[in-house]
């Protein structure tokens, strides 16, 4: 896999998660915190047992998206950040599929406040593409880290005597 492709995937994922996170933190259109709307969006999935959990998740999840997006560019954190975006993508896909399965008419909440009801097939395809991109980047990061660890071990070993 070319380095350029990986760089483009990394950039695209970072942009998606950064924008999604920021829009869940602040409503630029109305000029106030977007957390209440995101809390409502999470509650509409009916997956969490307590409303308080929805509120806590609505506060934490957007920041995790933002931090993970930025950490994708930090060499020593990229593997963990890729695992984070991969995990979040899997959870988003599971939540949306479950909502579709239960016949819920909800707004996705993926990019902050959305008035339109979710078009499930399109959204699931989008989440699958996101999951595929995250998996690709994770494999690339895993290989890069493994290679770096091997070369570090090799350089630390004493040179064989002639």
């Amino acid at each position: 896999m070319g380095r350029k492709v990986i760089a483009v995937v990394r950039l695209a994922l970072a942009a998606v998660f950064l924008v999604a996170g920021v829009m869940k933190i602040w409503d630029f259109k109305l000029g106030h915190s977007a957390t209440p709307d995101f809390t409502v969006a999470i509650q509409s999935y009916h997956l969490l047992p307590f409303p308080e959990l929805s509120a806590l998740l609505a506060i934490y999840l957007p920041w995790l998206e933002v931090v993970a997006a930025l950490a994708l560019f930090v060499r020593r954190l990229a593997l963990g950040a890729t695992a984070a975006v991969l995990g979040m993508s899997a959870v988003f896909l599971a939540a949306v599929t479950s909502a579709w399965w239960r016949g819920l008419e909800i707004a996705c909440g993926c990019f902050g406040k959305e008035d339109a009801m979710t078009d499930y097939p399109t959204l699931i395809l989008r989440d699958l593409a996101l999951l595929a991109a995250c998996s690709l980047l994770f494999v690339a990061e895993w290989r890069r880290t493994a290679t770096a660890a091997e070369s570090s071990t090799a350089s630390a070993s004493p040179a064989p005597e002639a």
Partner: protein
Amino acid sequence: MIAQVFRQLAFVCVCALLPALVSGAWQLQWKKEEPLAAGEIRLATARQWGDAVQWVDARSRTKYERTHIPDALLLNEDEWDSLVGPFLDAWDADKTLVVYCDGGSCEAAHKVAERIRADLKIGGVYVLKGGWAAWDGK
């Protein structure tokens, strides 16, 4: 390698926790100080009024049919013309109307309340602060 993944993941999660804590603390403060907009009432007030309240659901028909506040009447902007007749038939002039929508910053309840005041000339119309989310969360 797996340990390295989890170590980095944990670091990223902790780094996200710090701004989230600050944001959460600030928003709790903000929530306490958030004043009611004109025509809004809190759920606790509406509950105190008890049977004197007629709930009006300004959300979509789909959401209303899935679940709504007991005895709430459906009246939304999209189906105003067809819903206003049954609404007026069921309306009890002795009751105070409290309109609600999804919650958060949804504006549907304010629009419907304004239209009830302007088009139907009915006074004493309030909007539930926090909407359905406030009701569902209690």
